[in-house]
């Protein structure tokens, strides 16, 4: 059984994350629209998952023993497409078709069109419920596979997230590991101004989760948190990853307007120079 996993060193993963960011920027610039900020902010986490932590097989996307990944914040589709392409699920050239008619790379992920996408997402707040359901099914079958779910911080304003938080704790779904991409920004501004989220860690903790608070761009911390989460028994794990929106490109970082804006060709050129 071939699988991508196995532990890779930090330097390799950092390089990989850079490659992921480059693909994100290139495909968004080509598409002319899409979500830059939240794709870049979660890039290190997704890289750690796809190139180190998760057991998966790009040659057999439906491999029964795979770990599952649910991108609840579906607008970060470019990030998912980048890690899937670089993992070998499909040819990188397909990334140029993002958001175009006939493309399997829809504006938000569609599981019917693209192998490697477990479920269609895009309407916020639904991913964790789905992750829970998969986790329940895996447990019933005695499978050791784990379910990873990335949520946006603004997304946790949806009530369904807290319904799912209760369900995961109630059914002791220790095969669920959720990660909040806590970049502090949402479309209308800072999360704390739109609808306050803090204290995030305490809230999840109060809901019965094992909470791990990390710097979401520190690769070593990400891997450590994912390992810690795997060791927790009897409760689900939440990694609160403190991130920077637009991370990796200085002029995108922390800027709310790049939530839903693609780089222009001039911006792409400058961004690639910074990254390369």
């Amino acid at each position, binding site marked *: 059984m071939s699988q991508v996993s196995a532990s890779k060193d930090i330097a390799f993963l950092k390089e990989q994350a850079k490659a992921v960011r480059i693909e994100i920027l290139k495909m968004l610039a080509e598409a002319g629209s899409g979500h830059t900020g939240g794709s870049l902010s979660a890039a290190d986490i997704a890289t750690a998952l796809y190139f180190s932590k998760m057991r998966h097989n790009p040659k057999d996307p439906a491999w029964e023993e795979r770990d599952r990944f649910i991108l609840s914040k579906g607008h970060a589709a470019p990030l998912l497409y980048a890690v899937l392409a670089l993992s070998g699920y499909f040819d990188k050239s397909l990334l140029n078709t993002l958001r175009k008619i006939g493309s399997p790379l829809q504006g938000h992920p569609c599981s019917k069109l693209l192998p490697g996408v477990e479920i269609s997402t895009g309407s916020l707040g*639904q991913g964790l419920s789905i992750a829970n*359901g*998969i986790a329940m099914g895996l447990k*019933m079958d005695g499978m050791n596979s784990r379910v990873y779910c990335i949520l946006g911080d603004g997304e946790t304003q949806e009530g369904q997230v807290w319904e799912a938080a209760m369900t995961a704790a109630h059914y002791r779904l220790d095969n669920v590991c959720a990660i909040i991409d806590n970049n502090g920004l949402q479309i209308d501004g800072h999360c704390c101004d739109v609808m306050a989220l803090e204290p995030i860690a305490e809230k999840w903790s109060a809901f019965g989760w094992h909470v791990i608070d990390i710097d979401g761009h520190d690769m070593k911390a990400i891997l450590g948190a994912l390992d810690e989460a795997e060791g927790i028994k009897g409760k689900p794990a939440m990694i609160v990853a403190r991130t920077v929106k637009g991370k990796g490109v200085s002029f995108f970082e922390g800027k709310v307007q790049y939530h839903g804006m693609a780089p222009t060709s001039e911006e792409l050129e400058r961004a690639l120079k910074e990254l390369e």
Partner: protein
Amino acid sequence: MGERIATRDAYGDALLELGKKRKEVVVLDADLSGSTKTAKFAKVFPERFFNIGISEQDLIGTAGGLSLAGKLPFASTFAVFETGRAWEQIRQTISYSSLNVKLVATHSGITVAEDGASHQAIEDIALMRVLPNMTVIVSADGIETKQVIAAIADFYGPVYVRLGRSKVPVVMPDDYKFTIGKAHKFHIGKDANIIAAGIMVSVSLDAMELLKKEGIDAGVINMPTVKPLDNDAVIEAARASGLIVTAEEHSVIGGLGGAVCEFLAENYPVPVKRIGIKDTFGCSGPSDELMKLYGLTAEDIVRTVKQGLKR
């Protein structure tokens, strides 16, 4: 037609039977398992039953996840909450990805009675019918319900099944075999044909008898699958009589009547009269009195047929 069974009771029995045969069947409920009758399954198969609590949106998402893990989930709660509270979850997660989730809702229609408008789902068929990939089934009685549950378990894809709370007459023959997308023709009339679903099938059969006494040959077709509609049966009824009356315990907008009108208008235009809730909310009261108040009795159907025939 003496026996009366609530379709939700037949569901509870059918689910238990199915659970014995198919170990991939899992059942989810939102704190109403006693009322939806999924508690019967829960008692025998506690490890395959998930009470998600009072959280319908999470109920739908969790059911979706279980189907992705290869299970055959039946997710149940009251029709108004299942289709309304969690409509967008059904759209995004279940319908868009065409997951193999069975949404079986009880307590549909105004016959929820005393609980009033907040609990009376009279828009659920419309809400589910508009979703791509979704099959929509309305069960007429206990016999049909058992057949429906067996049939949808063998069918891959999202299905909405509408069941009721109160006991309704058994109208389908013992040897009835339900097929998704197929109508059951009790009789094709020469003067008018009533296309009915759910509890209105038995009411329509009563109306047929009353009309016969007045020399009017009205037929009754049970149309359990509102989507996909049995187009052939609708055409046959329209050709035979030239007047179609639809009857449902649902809003006249968007339900069975809407489906039949859409089809006939484009394919075989004939006059259609729709029996149903006339674009209004229900109210509290005893079931049978509400049926009178909202014009859902056999006498209402008789009057409507006669108006249609201008007799």
